[in-house]
């Protein structure tokens, strides 16, 4: 039962990361900074609850706000660099955050990490990690995010995001603001990653810089592309495949180090195959479209 809950929570957290990334990618920027914002949320919760005595709910909100601010800071040079270089810039940004945490031993305890993070509680209700209630809470948040995302992308505001992504000059000539929506989606995407990080810290009751490498960001990107960047349902499915992949490989008796390597190979090959034959990802199948049109 504990294993099932762990897998369910892992999938939910991956779904949050991927949905946040979906929003960012929709604006036309491919980012690998998700792990950095995930780290921000996790460390905000760890430091806030352990060292500052904040309530878990307040620490989560603080992490989300800080994630949003850093998200804007990360994307600020978007108009000054080309897209491929922007990808490198986001990579550097996330790695910088991880290295700051790894080397600020007096505050974060460095690579040894912080343990003993209290249980999550909201409005006085204690939601103990490792329980169905915690997994349910994580997926409730995923559900709310999905509803908001679907509403947003189908709205005229979403149409403006698409317009700014497709052709900045044409969008500008129509009087559409190009920069502000970009900042808003990045703030929202980073904020979602930070919320996921905060819940991760409660789930594990321990944080260290080790899990927040670029590999995590790449997995979030994989989930997005596997599921189909234009489909919310597809992204959820992609996140479940990625989130459940490693624990399931371990379940069938594969040693942890091999399971991790096998997962990377399997998803790498799957990504290559899908990109060639099904650019719309898995989500493209039920939309009846093989192309990667946005939903």
């Amino acid at each position, binding site marked *: 039962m504990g294993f099932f809950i762990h897998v369910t929570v892992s999938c939910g957290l991956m779904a949050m990361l991927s949905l946040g990334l979906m929003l960012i990618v929709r604006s036309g920027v491919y980012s690998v900074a998700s792990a950095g914002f995930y780290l921000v949320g996790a460390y905000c919760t760890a430091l806030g609850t352990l060292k500052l005595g904040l309530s878990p709910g307040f620490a989560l909100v603080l992490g989300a706000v800080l994630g949003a601010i850093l998200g804007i800071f990360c994307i600020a040079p978007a108009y000054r660099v080309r897209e491929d270089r922007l990808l490198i810039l986001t990579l550097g940004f996330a790695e910088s955050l991880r290295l700051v945490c790894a080397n600020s031993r007096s505050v974060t305890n460095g690579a040894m990490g912080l343990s003993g993070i209290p249980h999550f509680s909201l409005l006085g209700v204690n939601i103990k990690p490792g329980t169905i209630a915690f997994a349910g809470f994580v997926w409730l948040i995923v559900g709310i995010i999905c509803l*908001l995302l679907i509403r947003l992308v189908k709205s005229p505001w979403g149409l403006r995001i698409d317009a700014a992504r497709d052709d900045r000059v044409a969008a*500008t000539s129509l009087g559409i603001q190009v920069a502000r929506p970009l900042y808003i989606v990045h703030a929202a995407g980073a904020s979602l990653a930070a919320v996921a990080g905060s819940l991760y810290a409660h789930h594990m009751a321990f944080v260290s810089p080790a899990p927040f490498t670029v590999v995590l960001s790449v997995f979030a990107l994989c989930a997005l592309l596997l599921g189909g960047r234009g489909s919310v349902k597809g992204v959820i499915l992609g996140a479940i495949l990625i989130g459940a992949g490693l624990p399931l490989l371990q379940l069938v008796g594969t040693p942890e180090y091999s399971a991790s390597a096998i997962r990377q190979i399997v998803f790498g090959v799957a990504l290559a195959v899908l990109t060639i034959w099904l650019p719309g990802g898995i989500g493209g199948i039920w939309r009846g479209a093989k192309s990667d049109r946005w939903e």
Partner: protein
Amino acid sequence: MIGGSSRIVSNLVQVRVSRICKHFGGVVALDNASFELFAPGIFGFVGENGSGKTTLFDIVCGLVRPDSGSVLVNKHDITTWSATRRGKFGLGFGRSFQHPRLFASMTALENVLVGYPFSKGTSWDEAILGRVKYGEQLSSARDVARQQLDLLGLGDNERSYPAEMSFGQRKRLEIARVLLEQPRFVWLDEPFSGVEQGLVTRLAELLTHFSESASSGVCIIDHRMEVVRDISTRLFQLHNGKIVELAQS
């Protein structure tokens, strides 16, 4: 039809371009170009390739900054205004491009819809939290956009993506998007290129009708001299960055 929002533009619009100069490296694109236009009317701009026509439109619409000179709308100096500000704050400028700039991920209907004032006015929180019943507004906006597509002969293409359309259809789609907002001044860069002869006449009639019904100024760059001359109330020629008025009817 929907009237464009208006802040500094109320009724009649005067556009005054004064002593505009623009160089690209050592190449002179515009050399002391000056003219004054009053809407309504159709204004033709002709000249050989590289004479500075597109650069002139880009400067008026705020996509390119001039080296010197000024652009005034109803005596307000808008030279330093960004293109977004010119579009957003009710200047009532609409622009089409030499090579149609359409939104590749959107259908023809969505491409038109995105230029609709309501689409531009909804904020992200309204979109998420539903403070605006945008469903109903979107439905009526779709109807208006469909009418606009029908008017341009694109009624059967509303679900088509730009990549699935011919060059001429894309040109018309871009014009449909520009005209939907009923701008006070429309700047059309080669609107007739790639459009078959039968439709050129229809498009010319449509632009004339639009100019009269919306009291708008329609500025046209085109190489089809006979068409431009037939529909223009004033005709300008550009040569080596200099502008001269050829005719006034």
